[in-house]
């Protein structure tokens, strides 16, 4: 582990970034996130990366990864967290709100319209059959994400990680215990194991 940063000149926040390439305005933030969100079928992350890093160059790929890692370890919808953190980094609370409103607002209007249509026509047999077919495929996509995320654990032969994964799956998926209770046990346990194994690797 490298020591803490050198004692001389405690780094001022963001001293390393004297001229950020572009400073998006509030409307720009709103529109950019609305665009990413509306393009993002089955997940917005890919589009967010494309928009923020490649198209607008508001962040480098590394900055984006760091920000996303932060939003991933926090609870709640990751991409929603990302929009707030990202927007507020440039324009404070108003910026966070603008990005959040862009990300969630327009697709929420669409979802509400779809919900109204479903409430009205959901009993029609053809629609029920069609949705059942979509659900089958959607579950498949979810399993594909699970497999992709499991690969690194399998490659590392991370047995404890896999045991924790399986235990959570059984507790939530099979026994159907409430999420809060399972997490209140599983999170401290997993944290303790992670810290212990890191120490053992170091020693």
């Amino acid at each position, binding site marked *: 582990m490298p020591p803490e*940063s050198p004692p001389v000149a405690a780094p001022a926040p963001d001293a390393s970034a004297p001229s950020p390439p572009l400073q998006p305005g509030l409307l720009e933030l709103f529109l950019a996130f609305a665009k990413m*969100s509306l*393009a993002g*079928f089955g*997940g917005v992350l890919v589009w967010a990366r494309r928009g923020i890093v490649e198209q607008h160059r508001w962040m480098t790929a590394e900055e984006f990864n760091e920000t996303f*890692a*932060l939003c991933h*370890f*926090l*609870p*709640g*919808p*990751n991409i*929603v967290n*990302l929009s707030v*953190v990202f927007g*507020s980094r440039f324009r404070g609370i108003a910026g966070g709100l603008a990005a*959040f409103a862009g990300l969630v607002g327009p697709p*929420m209007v*669409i*979802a*509400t319209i*779809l*919900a109204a249509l*479903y*409430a009205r026509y959901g009993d029609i047999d*053809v629609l*029920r*059959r069609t*949705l*059942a*077919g*979509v*659900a*089958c*495929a*959607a*579950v*498949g*996509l979810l*399993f*594909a994400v*699970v497999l992709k*995320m499991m690969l690194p*654990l399998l490659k590392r032969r991370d047995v404890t990680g896999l045991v924790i*994964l*399986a235990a*959570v*799956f059984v507790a*939530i*998926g*099979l026994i*159907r215990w409430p*999420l*809060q209770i399972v997490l209140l046990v*599983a*999170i401290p346990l*997993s944290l303790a194991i*992670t810290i212990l194994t*890191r120490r053992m690797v170091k020693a």
Partner: protein
Amino acid sequence: MNSESNPIAALLWTFGLMSLFAVGGANSAIPEMHRAAVDVHHWLTDKQFADVFAISQLSPGPNVLIVTLIGYSVAGVAGALAATVAMCGPTALLAYYVSRFLDRSRDARWPAIIQAALVPLSIGLMAASGLIVAQTSDQSWIAVLITIVAAALAFATRINPLWMLLAGGLLGFAGVV
């Protein structure tokens, strides 16, 4: 708790609390949404929940918008809005404060440790999500086959997942499922 008489309050409370426990994002919270909406509050039937999941995957935007659909079925437009704000608000606030705190402290060790500890949990939760929706949606051998093929294609290829959803919908439309 007098939740049944005021559905908006029940939505705010249910999803506001869930928001803070949704480790790994919206798809990890699906078992808890199912438990709350189908088993505890009886807002939706099993079949309606699978439908709502399908619609949320079909529509653009973050996956968390499944709560918009649940909220609408409970209390119309106001319910949709309440559920969405409750599910996104608390954690967005938390993210805002934590990111400011981390910017100041610049100790990059903890996020990495916490993330490493949470990754297996969130994968387990997502697998449970898949199981719970599959138990409703995959009622026939052909339905199971569609799920397996979609999973294999999404895992092994870079085909846009929207095509797989549309193909599943077409097969359902044709009455194959």
